[in-house]
């Protein structure tokens, strides 16, 4: 589906380390390397799915891109400008073009504001519209995301999870962004509502030519929505590939294990579950060499000391990248 490949977002060497403080004078005694040297790009109208286990740094990547957290190092180039070096004023302008949708529709809306004022706030503070024009735009947004405009004077607690998530989407769309980070946007919803929201996101993408960074732990969701998928493990990418390729022929042993955990809707299919030994290592003390080596079924000596480099599988323009010593 990625018709246009003009790069909208280019992320290089993104790192986010959290200091661990201890002792009397709060000295930094260690660093949690939540995101460690992550690079990727995102084209216009494209969806990149970011999958991984809880705590692997997916959300940190998403929030660092919008500078909701200050990354430790790296660069984020959005529409030709490095987001990380913008002044506060330029950042406000850039944030009109990049938005975020949150996981929990219960905490992402201010309980003391009506949903109408939640959606109209961004239009007001950026002085895009006022008076009747503002009202019209808010009505259109409500209709577009499938809410009734006459419910505008109601408060978030009166709505169900799915409806609240629609309010969150309307708020993100209000400023006409080009790029939206969907941070587990459907994980908190039940399955039938998930499908509605996913279809809505897909329709909106076509209509407004949006790019999504779709952060999730649900493989079925990314399979449905993503053009390309990045698999993350303890702060680093393990594999990036076009969606069909990743599901058809996963290269990294972690991706293989992850996909084998995804149930296949076919009771006659032979079970070929790969069970990984041990637990996910703490990002406080990541293993030396390849971070996956203590659990990898195909571990070699080199994995224990040398960090794997990026390897292209097939032609580079296909964009199937893997970080594993199995593919020299």
């Amino acid at each position, binding site marked *: 589906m990625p018709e246009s490949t003009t790069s909208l977002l280019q992320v290089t060497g993104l790192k986010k380390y959290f200091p661990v403080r201890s002792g009397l004078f709060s000295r930094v005694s260690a660093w949690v390397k939540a995101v460690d040297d992550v690079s990727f790009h995102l084209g216009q109208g494209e969806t990149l799915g970011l999958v991984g286990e809880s705590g692997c740094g997916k959300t940190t990547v998403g929030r660092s891109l919008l500078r909701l957290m200050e990354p430790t190092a790296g660069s984020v180039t959005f529409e030709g400008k490095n987001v990380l070096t913008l002044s506060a004023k330029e950042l406000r302008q850039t*944030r009109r073009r990049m938005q975020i949708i949150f996981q929990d529709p219960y905490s992402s809306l201010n309980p003391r*504001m009506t949903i109408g004022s939640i959606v109209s706030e961004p239009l007001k503070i950026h002085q895009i519209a006022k008076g009747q024009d503002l009202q019209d735009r808010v009505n259109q947004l409500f209709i577009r995301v499938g809410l*009734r405009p006459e419910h505008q004077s109601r408060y978030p607690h009166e709505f169900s999870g799915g409806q609240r998530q629609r309010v969150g989407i309307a708020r993100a769309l209000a400023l006409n962004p080009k790029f939206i980070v969907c941070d587990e946007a459907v994980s908190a919803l039940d399955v039938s509502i998930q499908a509605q929201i996913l279809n809505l996101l897909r329709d909106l993408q076509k209509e407004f030519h949006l790019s999504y960074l779709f952060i999730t732990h649900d493989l079925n969701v990314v399979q449905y929505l993503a053009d390309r998928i990045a698999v993350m493990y303890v702060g680093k990418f393990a594999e990036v590939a076009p969606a069909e390729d990743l599901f058809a022929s996963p290269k990294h042993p972690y991706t293989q294990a992850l996909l084998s955990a995804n149930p296949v809707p076919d009771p006659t299919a032979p079970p070929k579950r790969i069970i990984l030994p041990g637990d996910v290592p703490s990002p406080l003390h990541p293993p030396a060499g390849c971070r996956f080596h203590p659990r990898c079924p195909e571990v070699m000596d080199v994995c224990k000391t040398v960090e794997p480099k990026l390897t292209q599988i097939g032609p580079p323009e296909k964009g199937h990248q893997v970080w594993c010593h199995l593919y020299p």
Partner: protein
Amino acid sequence: MHDSKSGASLKAEFVSLDAEGLAPQETPWQEFLRIFKKDYQALIGFWVLMLLLVTALAGKALTEWWVVFDPEAVRLTDKFLPPLSVPSPDSLPADRPFGGVYLMGTDELGRDVFARMFQGSFVSLSIGFVAVGISLGIGVLLGGVSGYYGQDKVSLKTVLIGIFLGGVLFYFNWNFLGYAIIAMLLLTWIFRLSVDTLIMRFTDAMMCFPTFFLILTAVALLPPSIYTIMFIIGLFSWMGMARFVRAEFLSLREQDFVIAAKALGVPEWRIIFRHMVPNALAPVFVSATIGVATAILTESGLSFLGFGVPPPDATWGNILSDGKGFIFDAPWLFFIPGLAIFLVVLAFNLVGEGLREALNPKLRSR
């Protein structure tokens, strides 16, 4: 369930998406009222307080502006009359109480206890409200700064401002306090501690003092007046409030809706006042309500010990204090103000509890 008031033409478009329907509209205020009204104890407390408010205002008006009840008239012929007694026949007609009866008796100087209670209600209540207003101001400011900017390091600018403030204290000859503030700021700057550490350690230090004795000391040093008492009580009771607000702000700043506001480019002051303060206020209100009761009680305690509001002004505390010498001969001098303080403090606490219940989102929609 499904309300179909308007937009019939649009309806077809989203009827499939919006099939869940909504309960009749209820604003947070209406919901609050609904829950609060169910709590009959809080409701009784609320009406007692309303009655007290009316009494206090009427007391101010009828004892000071239009002197219908004179709390200061001394009638040596009418000493120690029990409640509901009539003035003795040889009292001067000008000194007779309104209505010709001492509703709550008279004290050792023949003053009308009802008039004094009436005047005292305004004094006690205004001390409660002003003291809580001051502690609310200090507490919300310090707690809010601590919670929102807590992670930032203390900057040189802050230290310089602090040293200037310390200098002002030296000018007033409060050298000890000046040294303490400057030393604290320098230490935090040298060790690169955060704003949060500075403010909260100061709060902890304030909490270490037994408040009542601190107030006693301060009152003994300063000129006695009703305003001194208000300020002193307010100045030494903001610590709990500051902790409350800090905790609220700490949890709110991590909430998704605050992060969403940041992502939308909402200015910082608007995030604080539009998104965070309204959500942090509920527990603060509760603690303020109970704080009024505590302030009234503290003032009564001070007056009882003779450090409170000086004599011409009657407060419930000093009526009680005057009466304590005659507890067996004239028990009404002791029991009437005691009962009044008890009722008001109880009412404030009941309302505070009711507010806590009604504002707590976890107990919602019962």
